[in-house]
């Protein structure tokens, strides 16, 4: 449905002098989606987010928020966005309540609804206990939560969170992730991170950005599919010299590559592991099977793989895996 299209970004460019921070980025976001922005430092994640939230003007391109052009009508467009930058934008001399009430006013919440908005934001971010305390005296984790509370206090259609779990302890991280999934029920969420499991746990879509360009954009399911095992690691104590040929003759084996310490990588088609047939053959021929395990590719590898070389992904997977996967 087009009415649920909350953000559409087309051909976004942004230079800093000679440096091209964002190059030709386009994407869309609908209600109910959580979009994970993934990329190494300096990839252009924050710049893109700053552009979407109106903190930076793009050198070229268009941003439409709920159908409103951000450059033509910034005030109307910004009313639909809640933004948590990398550094939470806090007035440290104020107390949490004072600060959040100020935020409700900034976002033009009618007076009658301010208290309710404040209570709800505090409750959602676990800030009920710290209302009267000065922001300056709070721990980093709590300050981060105040930053998130600020971004959702006016129930914006779009919540943009730039590295929301930085500086939080594991319990808080889990709470924030739960909060993000909760937010996604009514809003659209964009979050940037370089913590990959975070993306797997919270996002419905992933975009990987590297050197200012989108290099990968897909559903999380497709990403998970890419990560599914398509190879086995086999270890044999007494392998014959003809082992590679022997293995390749097994049904379902696509290719065999020798590794160190009498180990081999066996590639096979998706969802058709020849493990049982290999085990059977190894036992029958007394190869002294020591290891037979499916090789899973972590998101890290896919990430490295995509960001380090966009040209020939399938070739580099092999060379990356060569060094990485041992156990």
């Amino acid at each position, binding site marked *: 449905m087009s009415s649920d299209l909350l953000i559409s970004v087309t051909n976004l460019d942004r230079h*800093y002098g000679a440096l091209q921070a964002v190059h030709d980025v386009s994407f869309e976001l609908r209600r109910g989606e959580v979009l994970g922005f993934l990329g190494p430092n300096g990839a252009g994640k924050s710049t893109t987010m700053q552009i979407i939230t*109106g903190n930076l003007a793009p*050198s070229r391109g268009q941003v439409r928020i709920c159908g409103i052009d951000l450059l033509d009508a910034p005030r109307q467009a910004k009313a639909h966005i809640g933004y948590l930058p990398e550094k939470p934008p806090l007035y440290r001399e104020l107390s949490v309540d004072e600060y959040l009430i100020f935020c409700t006013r900034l976002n033009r919440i009618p007076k009658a609804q301010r208290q309710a908005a404040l209570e709800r934001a505090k409750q959602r971010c676990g800030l009920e206990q710290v209302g009267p305390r000065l922001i300056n005296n709070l721990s980093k984790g709590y300050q981060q939560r105040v930053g998130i509370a600020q971004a959702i206090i006016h129930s914006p259609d779009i919540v943009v969170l730039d590295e929301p779990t930085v500086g939080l302890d594991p319990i808080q991280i889990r709470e924030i992730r739960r909060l993000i999934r909760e937010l996604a029920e009514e809003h659209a969420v964009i979050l940037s991170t370089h913590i990959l499991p975070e993306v797997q746990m919270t996002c419905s879509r992933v975009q990987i950005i590297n050197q200012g360009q989108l290099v990968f954009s897909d559903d999380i399911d497709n990403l998970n599919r890419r990560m599914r095992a398509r190879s086995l690691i086999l270890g044999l104590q007494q392998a014959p010299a003809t082992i590679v040929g022997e293995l390749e003759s097994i049904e379902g084996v696509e290719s065999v590559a020798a590794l160190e310490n009498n180990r081999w990588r066996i590639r096979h088609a998706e969802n058709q592991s020849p493990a049982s047939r290999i085990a059977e053959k190894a036992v029958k021929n007394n190869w002294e099977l020591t290891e037979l395990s499916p090789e899973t590719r972590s998101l890290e590898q896919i990430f490295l793989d995509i960001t380090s070389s966009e040209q020939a992904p399938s070739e580099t997977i092999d060379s990356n895996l060569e060094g990485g996967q041992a156990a």
Partner: protein
Amino acid sequence: MMIFTLAARELRSLFLSPLAWSILAVVQFILAWLFLSQLNDFILLQPQLKMIDNAPGASELVIAPIYGSAAFIMMMVTPLLTMRLVSEERRSGSIALLMSAPISMTEIILGKFLGVFSFLLLMTIMLTLMPLSLFIAGPVDPGLLAALFMALTLLLASFTALGLYMSTLTLQPTVAAISTFGALLLLWILDWAGDKVGNESATGLLSYLSILRHFEALGKGMFNSSDLIYYLLFISLFLILSIRRLDADRLQH
């Protein structure tokens, strides 16, 4: 409406820092000291003043000098109040809160201006309490007092506008403070050079630009619209420059 919200926040933050309180205390103390010594001199002069026809009264001899001193002291103090307005927000990143809120740059700048200006207005009112106390003792020229009050208010608003602009130019509050002070002092003493240029029109221009000339003229109770226009132009110029500077942050560098 939004401007007042921003101004109230600015004022609140000012009063939450010890800076505002210490400025209020120090300035008030120094001005009270000056006021008392002026008053003392005035009382000692009474016998001589009786001899002169149409002698100047307390308004000219006590009140006017106090406002003059206040103007000079505030030239040094205002930069301290304005220096953090934008630079500190940029440094701490809190500017992003304002930038991503549904408000315009104009509202941000006017809110900040109004926040510091209302602090200075409060200071001016506290200063004015001292001359007002003279009403108990004898005749005071209310017209002159009003003129002085207005002159100081306009002057302080101009200081604030300039200070705000300087604060948008830098990330370092101290740099903003020293540049504001330098610019204000230059404007203050601009007409000194004007006298020595020799050239008629240059002298006229320099003395028109001098921020002090207009203050002195208004403070004498001579209400001239050109003085008023000077201040209004000055204030609007620096507010518009600030808005443009803040806007330029988002744009191409």
